[in-house]
């Protein structure tokens, strides 16, 4: 039984066998209630969390908190790779628009083509609300895959005559949104550049 529990923990990203054993031994020392609460919350997380119908952010309802909020600026859509980016950008407190979570970036070598991402729903969303959307902000990682995805999205959005911008580059050395500190990230969201200026270079 101990072996099975250790096995499950070591399946988690970033957890090796040693750490898994330490976590299991820690749980063993706790009151039964504590462990019950722990496993219950894990189970509910998986069972009750759904993805927002509009932006694919996690949610407890059909539409997520951000999409439901009347205080958010619905004329701005910030396109990000995954949840971690939403959290990072929310933490800056500098952005008050909406999101669209792609669920990754295009990389055929990793088996991810455009149709595996939430791109079609983004285009539909833009087509449907194009009178109300002022700007789509691309906030993907500055890797070649991120650039390729930006380029693909730009071409898809272009026919709808909506402004497309990218967040200011050179955020951090690590380059990934997740690692950028809040101040720099906040600044790069405010100082974004129109995509067209970028490809002219």
């Amino acid at each position, binding site marked *: 039984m101990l072996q099975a529990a250790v096995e499950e923990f070591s399946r988690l990203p970033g957890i090796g066998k040693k750490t898994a054993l330490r976590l299991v031994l820690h749980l063993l020392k706790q009151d039964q209630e504590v462990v019950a609460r722990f496993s219950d919350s894990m189970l509910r997380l998986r069972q009750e969390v759904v993805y927002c119908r509009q932006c694919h952010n996690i949610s407890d309802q059909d539409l997520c908190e951000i999409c439901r909020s009347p205080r958010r600026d619905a004329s701005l859509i910030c396109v990000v790779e995954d949840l971690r980016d939403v959290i990072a950008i929310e933490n800056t407190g500098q952005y008050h628009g909406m999101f669209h979570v792609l669920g990754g970036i295009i990389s*055929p070598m990793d088996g991810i083509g455009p149709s595996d991402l939430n791109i079609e729903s983004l285009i539909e969303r833009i087509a449907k609300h194009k009178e109300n959307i002022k700007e789509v902000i691309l906030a993907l990682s500055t890797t*070649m895959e991120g650039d390729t995805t930006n380029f693909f999205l730009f071409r898809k959005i272009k026919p709808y005559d909506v402004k497309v911008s990218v967040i200011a580059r050179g955020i951090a050395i690590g380059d990934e949104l997740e690692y950028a500190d809040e101040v720099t990230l906040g600044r790069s969201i405010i100082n974004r550049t129109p995509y067209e200026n970028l490809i002219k270079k």
Partner: protein
Amino acid sequence: MVILFALKFFTFARKPVFMHLLKLSLFNFRNYPEISLEFSSKFNCFAGNNGTGKTNLLEAIYYLSFCKSFSNPTDTQNIMFGQDMFMIQGQYKVNGQEDELYCGVKRQQRKVFKRNQKEYERLSDHIGLYPLVLISPGDAQLILGGSDERRRFIDGVISQYNHDYLHHLLNYNKALAQRNAMLKMFAERRKFDAASLEIYDELMIVHGQMIFEERKRFFDDFLPVFNKYYGVLSGGTERVNIEYQSTLIESDFAQQVLEARDKDLIAQYSTVGIHKDDLTFFIHDVPVKRYGSQGQQKSFLIALKLAQYTFTRDIKGFSPILLFDDIFDKLDENRVEQLMTLVSNDTFGQVFVTDTHLERLESLFKKIKAESRIFSVEAGDISKVSTQH
């Protein structure tokens, strides 16, 4: 054009920096338990039968320049059998100043590389500081091997002076790999989407075009230098040529990518682009690969590497160390003498040579009257035979 300018600039305007290896010490490196050698600033020769370990000495010198072996990519396999670690130490003289290089490899530990007692954080900071060109039997792959060997050769020379080139090359290769994966994905899913493919087409075209133009420019400068060296080696009796082949020479790259699309979809990989470029080597308009004698092929390779040497020298502003590993076989005496006379010139720096015949080396260097030191190598034991000033 840039390189031509550089050639002129360095040849005429800059006083050459002189660099040479003064002393080499080995500890448990391959078949050497412990050894220390002092070198001449010009020619140094290691004579011995095959299997005595003379090439291992060149390996050690190569290690100090490139932080790795030229024949074995696994560091720990260079540790003497049954031992835990090896050390290589080299004392260099660069423009009158002495530099000390140290390389240590211990089993199950990372490699330690130091310059003047200070450890490098990144080995890439070291590579290029003590330039070296190796000419060895392995070079035959340049003629006999696949086209990737020849592309690697030109890419290696160009990236030394053009940093953008490397950037374009990396981006091109990545776009190519993604495009090929995309073509496979279409086949697996039985679904084709032009818009997805076009993003990679465009990347390949932008970077591919830059690479093509740089390779073409490079050849215009490289060919005369190569021709000059081949002429010296052959006594000027043979007409040689190198032809750069690329589909991009014939027509517009963008057009080609578009036209190849159906073929690419069937093949499930990209059939046109600079990843298909090749070089063909000719002697008297006949391809060397198929018709050249072994002696001609060898002279061809040596001329190629000497031309590479010249480019490296003019970029760095000083003469790299030159290693000749066992290249005298299959070369007639005349060519060997021409070659050694050529590299005894001041524009070539320190030279290391291995050969199986001690007497051949002794009479050769006596004849060309070059400053030299000859060592006899016998199963891990080295003795100095002669020094000539």
